[in-house]
Every structure is written in C-alpha cells, then in structure tokens.
C-alpha cells in the first residue's frame, strides 16, 4: 500500500511537471533552432500544383515547388523576376513565341521516388510535363483555364487522349534547359501564370511513384520539403538540395522608407532559407488563433480578428497599434489583391435582359436604383473596421490600371435618388420582382443578408420580396452560381495575377455560366474591347481600353461593386519578415528569419 502510494505520488509529480512545462518545439532539445510558426484560416486539401486553386494550397505549393518566375519579395506593385528561369523570356516580335532558358544545376528534393533516393536535376522537360498535367483529366486539374485555347496544340493534345509520349508543337524543350512556348495569339499575362503555384514544376517519377497520393507527398525543387501534413498543420524543413542564392534586397524592391521598421534589411547579402523549420497551422477559429498568437511560444503570425480591433488598436485611421502591442508585435496593413462585390444575373428576365425592350430599360433602372441603395461605407464600417477601400467599378486599387480619378457616384449611398429612380420607371411594391438572395449558413452570412435587405427596404423594396435561400455548403452555392440559378451573386475575388484583365474577364461574354462570368453579362462592345486588350502588352492604350470596359460595367449597372479589404497582419517582433497572404505573395516564407527575442537587433526594432 505504501509503495503504491509512493508510485502514485511520483506519477502525480510527473503529470504536474509535464503539464506545466512550457515550450513547443518539436526539434531536438538543446539545439538552438529557428522555427517560424505561421497560421492560415483554413487547410489546403491538396498540395499537387495542378490543384493549387485556393490561397491556402498556393501558399504551400510555392514553397515546396519552383516556378519559372516569382514576384519580387518586397516590390509593390508586384513585379516579376526570374526564378527557375535564368532571365525574363525572350519574346518574338509577333508576341507569339516565348523562349525561356532554365537554370542548370537545380535539383529536386531527395525522395524514394528517385533511383537511390537522390533527387535528380530539373530540366525543361519537367516543366513541359508539369504543364501537360493540367490538360490530363485524370489529374482533376483546376488551373487549365489559364492556358486553355492559348498554347498551340495543347487543347488538341487533351482531345487526343492526353498521351504524355506525344509532343505538343507549342510546348517544347528546345534543349535540356530551354523551354519554348508558342501561342495561338498574344497572351501578355503568360509570364504571370508561370509564377503561380499552378505552374510548379513536378518530377514525373514522383507523380508515378505516389499515384493519387502525390497530392500529399509533394516532391519539388522549392526551398522547403514537407515533413508532415494533416488537417491541423503542415511542417516543412529546408530542402537540402535547394540552390544557394544570395538575397539582393535592392533587387527585391526594398524600400527603406516603408519597410525598414520590419528589420528586413538584416537579410541582405545572406542565403535563405534562414529557418530550420516552418510550421503552418490551419486555424479557422479566431479566438483560438488569437490566444495562440499572443503566447510567446506558439504561432508567430496572425491577422487581427475583428473582435480584437478595439482592444489592439488605438486608431483605425491611420491604423495604429496600442503601445503595449506595438512593443511586442510588428504590424502591417495590406490592401487585398482582390475585392468583394455582387453581380446581377443578367439572364434573369426580372432583373437583366428581357425580350421586351421596355422591360429591359426598366430593369436597368431597377438595377441602378439597387446599386444606389447599397451602403458601401456602412458595410465597410460594420465588417471591415472601416479600413477597407471602397471603389467604383471592377478594377481594384491594387492593380496598376486602377483609375483613381473615376467618378464615385456608383458607390455613393443615395436612397432618395434610388426611390426616385424606381418611381420614375414605374416600379412600386406591387411590381418589384422577388429577389432570391443566396448564401451559405452562418451568422455572418445571415447578417450580410439582413443588412442588404434593410437597405433595399429603405428604397421601397417590400421585405417579403427579398427572400433568403441558404445553401448547405460552398459547393452547393457554387453549383447554383455555375448553373445560373440565382439572380444576385455575392462573392469575393482574389487576383490570380496583378493585372486588371483578371477581373475584367469576370464580365466577358464567352466566360458566361458555367464560367467565371456568373452574371452572364454580354455586351458586344465590351467583349470586343476585351479581345483587343487581351493581346496587348501593358501600355496607355491598353489601360484606356480597361477603363472604358470598367465604365461600361458601371453604366450598365451590372454589379454592386466594390470593396477591397485591408488586412491587418501582426507578427512577433523577433520574426524578420514582410508577410503577404495574397495569392501572389506566398513565397515570402522563403525569406523569413527568426531571431532570439533578446537579440540586440530585435531590441532595436521595438
């Protein structure tokens, strides 16, 4: 009995000691290791580049795989630079042939998929194989739309059965380290697409070795390799075969005036990756993420949740941290590379196109009135801490083609004007059509609806004529959008590349449902301008075309738009980085350094 009691006491002691010990590292004890713990709102489902369609998947993929080009770490607006390529592409005078030299001596990570487990050298053939996979239906690709109808022979290759042994005239290796792409018509955004996770270069051996499970066994030549991955986190370590390249901050777009406070100058002239382990946590729950972030030994990066804004900030204009937090954390506000907006479905005769020209004219007035009745500033204050950027049209402020001088009439809340417009065009409570508002479950979605309905009631819409339809999952509402089942589509759009073409294509007629033009907007003038601009390199002429297309969308009252959200990112003072959670910014993790919190360099940043 006495022995039992002693054992029990000993076990209890161990339990208490174990439970109360601090520290989170999985790395060997006693070794001074640098771990960066990043957090994302959701988990990626696949790490295969052909399915890197979400922000979360893309952020991992661009760190596991190499792309021919990448966006410069610090340059804003975003600017491309060669990565696997030795230089920017050589483009033929007709803009149809791109010749891209690929670096020699680039090796894939060691993996059992290779003979002897040693990663082999990456060649131009690997890039070609990787791009072909987007046109192989068995891979369930999500990024084929980037190159569909663009590259000579690629679509035909798919139609002929996606036989990898068959060559494609427009996609060739003209040497072991030279890629040549021939286009059907000029595609100025081609180089941007070669910086996306979708164009990550994979080795064929690994795809064949792992089969379907290649999606969770990534084998790339990127700066990191995967150690473990589940629904709660991914753990990456530096890839042993990764090339040694010195950081040239000036080349990466360093701007001392706006970036020196983050300490990024400390990495100049050094060779990344600087960390020993990269842990990416997938945390949907805001309260858990915040609790974890504010500890000293858990996640080191988090977005500021709305519910903490009053506590953490002393001001939102300009965004200023409470001194207590400013002492501990870096803070950066970043304009979203994308925007939120709602589109009327023009295929609904009640709101859009109608066989009766008079009704179509009245529908136009109805849409314009609803746009005037939408209170963007209030939405901004309610949901985005008042720091989002409201702008007219569909060219968001983050792209170089943004038109700062555009009239803001379409985003000014004017319920009286809306009521007058409705009355002048014969709309009243009896004649206004029923509007079905589709959404997914959840309190935020519901409140969005209630806010929208309240605004519409203020312009004279009867409450019972704005009907909520809740879809169980995102997949279900996406199906409704694709199948043109809803008269109003509210969504957010993240830019795939920093070019207004990426948002203008949302209103291009041939992209109508099931394509990305959910509103089924068809305007011959718009489509013609889109086609003209589609083959132009950036120039004032192209920008002018973009602006005219933008104006058409505004004049036709096709969309209630828009707002680009401003995210407030916080990270620990000892983390030397400039995080970027945009689709085009995930590669920043390569440059992250983590210093001892007591190091003089960190003290200097406080």
């Amino acid at each position, binding site marked *: 009995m006495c022995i039992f009691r002693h054992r029990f006491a000993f076990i209890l002691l*161990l*339990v208490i*000691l*174990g*439970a*109360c*010990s601090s520290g*989170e590292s*999985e790395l060997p004890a006693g070794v001074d290791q640098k771990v960066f713990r990043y957090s994302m709102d959701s988990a990626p*489902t*696949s790490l*295969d580049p052909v*399915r890197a*369609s979400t922000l979360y998947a893309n952020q991992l993929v661009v760190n596991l795989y190499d792309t021919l080009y990448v966006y410069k770490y610090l340059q804003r607006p975003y600017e491309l630079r060669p990565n696997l390529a030795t230089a920017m592409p050589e483009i033929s005078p007709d803009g149809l042939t791109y010749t891209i030299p690929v670096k020699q001596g680039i090796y894939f990570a060691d993996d059992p998929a290779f003979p002897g487990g040693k990663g082999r050298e990456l060649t131009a053939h690997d890039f070609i194989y990787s791009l072909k996979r987007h046109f192989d*239906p*068995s891979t*369930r*690709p*999500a*990024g*084929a*739309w980037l190159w*569909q109808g663009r590259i000579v022979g690629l679509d035909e290759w798919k139609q002929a059965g996606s036989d990898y042994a068959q060559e494609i005239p427009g996609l060739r290796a003209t040497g072991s380290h030279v890629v040549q792409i021939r286009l059907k018509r000029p595609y100025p955004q081609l180089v941007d697409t070669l910086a996306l996770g979708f164009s990550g270069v994979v080795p064929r051996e690994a795809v064949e070795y792992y089969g*379907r*499970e*290649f*999606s*969770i066994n990534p084998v790339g030549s990127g700066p990191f390799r995967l150690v473990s991955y*589940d*629904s*709660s*986190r991914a753990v990456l370590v530096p890839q042993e075969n990764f090339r040694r390249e010195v950081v040239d901050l000036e080349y990466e777009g360093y701007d001392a005036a706006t970036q020196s406070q983050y300490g990024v100058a400390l990495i100049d002239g050094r060779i990344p990756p600087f960390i020993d382990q990269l842990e990416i*946590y*997938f*945390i*949907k*729950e805001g*309260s*858990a993420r915040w*609790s*974890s972030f*504010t*500890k*000293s030994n*858990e*996640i080191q990066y988090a977005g500021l949740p709305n519910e903490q804004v009053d506590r953490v900030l002393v001001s939102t204009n300009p965004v200023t941290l409470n001194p207590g937090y400013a002492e501990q954390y870096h803070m950066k506000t970043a304009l979203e590379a994308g925007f939120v907006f709602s589109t009327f479905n023009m295929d609904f005769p009640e709101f859009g196109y109608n066989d009766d020209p008079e009704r179509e004219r009245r529908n136009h007035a109805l849409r314009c009135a609803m746009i005037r009745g939408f209170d963007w500033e209030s939405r901004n204050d309610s949901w985005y801490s008042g720091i989002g950027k409201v702008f007219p049209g569909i060219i968001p402020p983050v792209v170089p083609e943004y038109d700062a001088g555009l009239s803001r009439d379409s985003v000014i809340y004017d319920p009286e004007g809306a009521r007058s417009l409705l009355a002048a065009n014969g709309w009243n409570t009896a004649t206004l059509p029923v509007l079905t508002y589709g959404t997914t479950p959840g309190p935020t979605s519901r409140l969005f609806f209630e806010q929208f309905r309240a605004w519409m009631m203020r312009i004279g819409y009867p409450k019972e004529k704005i009907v909520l339809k809740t879809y*169980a*999952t*995102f*997949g*279900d509402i*996406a*199906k409704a959008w*694709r199948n043109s089942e809803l008269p109003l589509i509210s969504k957010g759009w993240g830019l*795939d590349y920093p070019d207004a073409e990426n948002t203008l*294509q949302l209103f291009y007629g041939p*992209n109508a449902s*099931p*394509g*990305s033009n959910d509103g089924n907007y068809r305007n011959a003038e718009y489509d013609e301008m889109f086609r003209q601009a589609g083959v132009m390199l950036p120039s004032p002429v192209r920008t002018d075309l973009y602006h005219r297309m933008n104006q058409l969308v505004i004049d036709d009252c096709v969309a209630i738009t828009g707002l680009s959200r401003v995210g407030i990112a916080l990270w620990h003072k000892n983390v030397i980085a400039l995080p970027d959670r945009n689709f085009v910014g995930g590669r920043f993790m390569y440059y992250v350094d983590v210093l001892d919190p007591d190091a003089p360099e960190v003290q200097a940043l406080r």
Partner: protein
Amino acid sequence: MEVFQYVLRKLLAGIPLVLGVTLISFVLIVYFGPDKTYELLGKNPTADEIAEIRSQLGYDQPFVTRYMDYLREIVTLDFGSSESTDEKVSSILARTVPTSIALAIPGFVLGNLLGVVLALVAAYYRGFWVDKFIMGFAAVGMSISFLIAIIGFQILFSSSDGLDLLPVRGWDMSTPLQYIRYVTVPTLATVFVALGYNTRFYRAVIVEEMTRDHVRTARAFGVPPVQLFYRNILKNSMIPIVTRIMFSIPVIVISGSLLLESYFGIPGVGKVTYDAIVTGDQPILKAVVVLTAVLFVIAQLLADICYRVVDPRVSLK
C-alpha cells in the same frame, strides 16, 4: 459456449442492421449531400470539364450501381481515396481514429467515474445542501454550451490572459508527458460539461434504486452505508449505466469531437468527418457510416454481455 453462440447470433443479426444503415445513409448522401463537382473545378470550366469530373466522381452512374460498388467496398474494406485530399481512406482513418480515441478517453473515463461518484454522494445526501450543491453544479455544466466551455478553459489555462500553463493548440503523443500537456485542457472542458449530464442521469438511477424494498430492508438490518451502496445499490444500478457508457463508445471512436479538434488543433477523425460532410467527400463518409454502424452492433453486444456480468439473472438468449 452459450456466450459464443450468442455473440455469433448477434453478429449475424447485425448484418441487416448495417446494410439498412448504409442504404439509408447512402440515399441521403447521394440525393441530399453536397455536390463535390464544383469544388474541384477551376475558374472557367467548360461543360465537358464538368462532365469529366462528374464521371470521375461516379455521379453519372445509376444509384443501384453506385450502391453495389459501396457494398463491394464494405466487403473488401477498401473505400478508395478521399476526393478532397486523394489520401487513401484507410490511411486517413488509421491516422486519425487513434488520435480521437486518445483525446476522448481521459474525458470519457473521468466524466463517467466522477459522475458516478458525485451521483452516489448526491443520492446519499438527497435533499441536503450537498445534494443541492452537486445538482446545481451539474445544472451549470449542462447549461453552458460546450463551445463556451472550450473557449473559457482555453483562455483560463492556456492563454497569456489566463494562467498560461498549457499549450493553446497542438497535439503530441511522442511521450506521455507531452500527451498530458496537450490533452489536459480538452479533458477539463469535456469533464466539466459531461459531468452535468452524467451526474444527473446517474443520480436519478441511483435514487430510484435506493427506494427499492431490498435496500430498505438492508438498511433496517444495519448494513453499513459503503457496503449498502456498493453491493445493494450500485450493482443493481449498473444496467442503465452500462447502457449509457457502451453506446457512447462508437461516438467517441468515430465521431471524435469536432469542436475539441478544431479549437485545439488536434488532427482527429471528428474534423475529417465534418469536412467530409460539408464537402461531400463520399469515400470518407461511406467508410465512417459503416464503421459507426459496425461499432454500434459491437457496443450492443458488449452491453448485453456486461448486463450478464453485472446481473446474473440476465440470460443471453
């Protein structure tokens, strides 16, 4: 021999039950579940691409063909790969089910043990302040939502605003000490909520047993309270207690706890199942349905055997 025959009989009788459950579930999955197609598609899909994905997912097959495939999968125990991650379903379950069990066991055991002990104390002091205090505590546990309990305990024990003693998130079973570090706060939240329900339920069972004639007689004969509770009350109360415990087991093994796993970043089967439900990942759902049904059959069987153990009057026929 009697037990063996009974087990065999029950297992055979369980087959129609499993088939019935799978059929009903499959009807619900096919006709009312989410359509996975639109999550897999890219941004500008053509009608052909939509058809390709639907075909790969088997959506273009008749219901009967798809159900027959399901039955074949049950027989071969090969449910294929997840439509979301492409990982084999068997690997996913092998990886996540043990985690969920390890997460749930401490809370389950402590919640039930403490529930029985507190119920005995409350029943013994029925009507006195001790009883009222315990029942009041139980009512609090029942009234507070699990989500609030989780957030509250997380802030209290783990966050820098609280005691900051244990991790907010994560999971590590590499050593017993690490396991204890990570399982403690989820367990406290589970026990806090479970105690409310368990204590009230067990108290009601025990109080009912205390009013029986044989207990009154034993008391009149001067049987000491501990012996009275152990031999005459607890043993006879065991059937409803065993029933409750046994039928909780499949839920623990398969369902896990979505909230615990989400808030504490624990890679268990609860989160996998939830994600499969909301995204329409049918291979995972099909496997989970079968496993749950089979576990319920086994739990029922074990419960019957336990009845016999705790009450020799029960016959396994």
